[in-house]
């Protein structure tokens, strides 16, 4: 083996040691986080599958990025690993082995070239600049240098003239890459791997749509023993105020971010020009962990119409506030639609972080958005965000038979939800009730025993009110006998189905589109086909949160409607702007989210926009000007049922 041939394995060894030092510095920072329960064995065993399958599925939505990453990361790791093995004399002496190393670095060089081509000469807006712009050069230098050394060794020393400069080049590039492990782009490599192992929502990798928020221990706020003014006891703060309040594996998650900007492109608040950019938010959270932190090194798109903040932080300094990293308006701009989470190749949980910080704002500071204070207060004292009588919830059904659940119980319990008070959604519910009667479904409602499900309170960070409502609703539901809960409100569906579980409420909950699909398939609702073009808007809390994207589409197809898909549909659908308490927070932007969504609907050319959520109905119907007509799927089904000949015969006969 030639001298440079020995030099390369030693260089890789030195770089590995240096990398270990850089990584341990970051690990020391993560230790300020709160403890988290992690199943290490399971996580480590699952890492290859999580990385090669789950992550690849998300990265693969952009095939160029997937190929680039496979070449650059695969080549770099394989080449460096094999080069280390060349220290074993038998392998180091093998020219075939060196050819293998050369091949791996050749791949890495191609990957580095692809990284460069993506960013140079023009960098797409969603990608970050700064240190990221230097990355392709460092990658290429390390790979090209190592390639030269390996080729020389493979050819038996015929390229010695190139091999020395090659080693120098590899050393320069490699050093540059390793020095970026702490705060630069390379941090995502090891933080990402650790994040995949110790992910806070491991069930996401096992095909479970794990989207429920974790309950907060409210009793933690009760100080034991004597109350000491001015003394902060550990573990008693509710919600997240400082980086140290995050669990350590959440902090690892923020460091896993590679600033690819896919979240930024998907975020409806960003598109509307509200001061939220999920990428920037995660970067602010990641940089706040550093003692004496500033946000100055960030080099991507800013928060649109960013509100003035000091941009300073540290592990024990506040995250939110004008004197900190993140302006409160940024937190309240989020619609909790999870589009960023869906797009994130590193599986970062943006919405959990936002709700965690909102909890501190609401529970500890009482700093809720101005218009949210009154609805939260009404929820506390009237179980209804507008302070309306619970008995008035069934007023929409005046003139219809709406059975109230009694001791006999019912097959299906119809959960009416907040939308029942709204005249527009009342029309949807009337159609649904009429359909249930026609299909002969045994159903009933709770009447004035139905309280608000607590979705609004929870998303606004008022965990105390949510937990009270959840417990009250669960005990009400436990008193009655029914098999399934039916609802036309995906927000209620998500809360009842997924979030009540943590409080002991396990229910089978079905969305009205799924039940109507069942009934139509069973022939219990004879239809006459409606021939027109329709486009379907997936509610975030049904599609993304619960993975239910097929039943509504199947139902639309059964109605004989020509279904045209929007630019963003299914699990990658765009929010209507109505979730997460966003209409109450009312953070000013350039445009409105529903206007953007309606423009996407109008672009399909369909005359009808089918919806399946009271929030979406209200938000999209509020769009002015020429636009497709907004109809709930239940209304479309009723229209088809009423047009059916058998229905006409039945009417004539009666």
């Amino acid at each position: 083996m030639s001298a440079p041939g020995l030099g390369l394995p030693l260089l890789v060894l030195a770089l590995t040691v240096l990398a270990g030092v850089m990584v341990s510095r970051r690990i020391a920072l993560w230790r300020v986080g709160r403890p988290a329960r992690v199943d290490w064995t399971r996580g480590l065993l699952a890492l290859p599958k999580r990385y090669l399958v789950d992550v690849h599925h998300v990265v693969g939505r952009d095939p160029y990025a997937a190929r680039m990453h496979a070449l650059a990361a695969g080549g770099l790791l394989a080449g460096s690993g094999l080069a280390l093995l060349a220290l074993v004399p038998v392998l180091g002496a093998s020219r075939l082995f060196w050819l293998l190393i050369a091949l791996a670095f050749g791949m890495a060089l191609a990957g580095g070239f692809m990284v460069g081509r993506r960013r140079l000469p023009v960098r797409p807006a969603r990608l970050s600049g700064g240190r990221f712009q230097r990355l392709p050069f460092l990658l290429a230098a390390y790979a090209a240098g190592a390639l030269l050394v390996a080729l020389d060794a493979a050819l038996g020393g015929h390229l010695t003239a190139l091999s020395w400069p090659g080693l120098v080049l590899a050393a320069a590039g490699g050093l540059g890459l390793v020095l970026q492990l702490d705060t630069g782009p390379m941090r995502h490599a090891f933080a990402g791997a650790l994040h995949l192992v110790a992910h806070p929502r491991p069930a996401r990798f096992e095909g479970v749509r794990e989207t429920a928020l974790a309950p907060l221990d409210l009793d933690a706020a009760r100080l034991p023993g004597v109350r000491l003014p001015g003394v902060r006891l550990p573990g008693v703060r509710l919600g997240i105020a400082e980086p140290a309040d995050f669990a350590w594996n959440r902090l690892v998650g923020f460091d896993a971010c590679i600033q690819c900007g896919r979240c930024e492109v998907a975020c409806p608040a960003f598109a509307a020009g509200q001061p939220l950019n999920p990428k920037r938010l995660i970067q602010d959270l990641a940089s706040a962990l550093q003692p004496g932190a500033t946000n100055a090194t960030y080099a991507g798109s800013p928060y649109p119409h960013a509100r003035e903040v000091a941009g300073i932080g540290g592990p024990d300094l506040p995250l939110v506030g004008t004197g900190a990293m993140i302006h409160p308006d940024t937190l309240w701009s989020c619609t909790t639609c999870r589009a960023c989470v869906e797009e994130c190749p590193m599986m970062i949980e943006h919405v959990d972080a936002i709700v965690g910080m909102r909890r501190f704002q609401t529970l500890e500071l009482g700093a809720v958005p101005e218009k949210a204070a009154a609805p939260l207060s009404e929820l506390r004292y009237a179980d209804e965000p507008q302070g309306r009588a619970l008995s008035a919830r069934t007023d929409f059904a005046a003139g219809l038979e709406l059975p109230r659940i009694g001791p006999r119980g019912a097959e299906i319990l119809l959960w009416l939800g907040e939308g029942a008070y709204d005249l527009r959604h009342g029309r949807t519910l009337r159609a649904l009730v009429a359909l249930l009667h026609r299909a002969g479904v045994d159903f009933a409602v709770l009447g004035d025993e139905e309280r608000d499900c607590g979705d609004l309170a929870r998303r606004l960070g008022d965990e105390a009110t949510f937990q009270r409502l959840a417990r009250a609703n669960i005990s009400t539901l436990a008193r009655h006998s029914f098999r399934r809960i039916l609802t036309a409100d995906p927000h209620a569906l998500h809360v009842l189905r997924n979030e009540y579980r943590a409080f002991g409420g396990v229910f089978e909950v079905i969305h009205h589109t799924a039940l109507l699909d069942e009934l139509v398939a069973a022939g219990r609702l004879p239809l006459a086909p409606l021939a027109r073009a329709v486009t379907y808007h997936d509610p975030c809390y049904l599609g993304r949160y619960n993975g239910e994207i097929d039943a509504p589409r199947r139902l639309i197809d059964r109605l004989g409607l020509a279904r045209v898909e929007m630019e963003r549909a299914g699990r990658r659908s765009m929010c209507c702007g109505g979730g997460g308490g966003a209409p109450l927070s009312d953070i000013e932007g350039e445009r409105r989210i529903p206007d953007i969504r309606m423009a996407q609907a109008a672009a399909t050319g369909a005359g009808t926009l089918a919806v399946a959520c009271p929030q979406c109905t209200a938000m999209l119907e509020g769009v002015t000007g020429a636009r497709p007509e907004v109809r709930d799927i239940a209304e479309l089904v009723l229209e088809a049922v009423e047009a059916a000949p058998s229905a006409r015969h039945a009417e004539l006969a009666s």
Partner: protein
Amino acid sequence: MSEVPHIVVLLSAGRHPVSGRHCPVPVELQAIGLGHMLCGTGAADAITGLHAGPGTPALADALGHGLARLVHLETGGEDDPLPSLIAALREEAPALILAGRAGQGGEDTGTLPYALARALSLPIVADAVALKSGPLPGTLQVEQALPRGARRRLVVRLPAVITVHPAAPAPRPFAFAARTRGEVEQRPGVPSPRNAPAQAIEERPYRPRPRLIAKSAAGASAAERLKAATEAASGGGRLLVDPAPEEAAREILAHLRGLGVLRR
């Protein structure tokens, strides 16, 4: 007045107008907010809540709206709260007593602050919407809400009783942690049984009544009903078309005198 005055906010056992459940009275929470405006941030310890009565679960919720301390004088359900309050306030001798102009949901006649002021021989100012330190030490400048949106500013010497108007700024939003950590100091109140009311009083949640349409409602045509409804909504007064400036000025002055905005 440079130093922070000691403020006591009177709290009553309110009920939600629709659900009928126990809840804090909004105008009393606004009173806490005015107290904060007066002492500024960081001096919240200077504000104490005071309640006399059997106590309700929602009482402590006032702690979540910016009270650090709450004194609860426990009395029986039939006891008159006034003697307990008088005794406690004589002992505490606060510089300022804030109360809502009327409670919500109980037997709230709005007379308690007046009875209290008389018993303690303190001046009372009704319907405050803003408080500021007065020009001289020991005085308070009060902005008072008059009917039809008019405002009047006056200065009162402390100690005094001030009642707060619903047009005051919105209260601080509720903070759950502050409610959990706040202190409630239980003390026995002064037992003072009241005479039983002549008739049993029936309590039920408030429900808005349908608006009556003017006299011509029954049997009149739709157009007449509309006319009656819109006439009732108009503000009255006289319509002058193109008057002389002097005449217009006289009319405006007369109108303002009629409203009570101008005195002379």
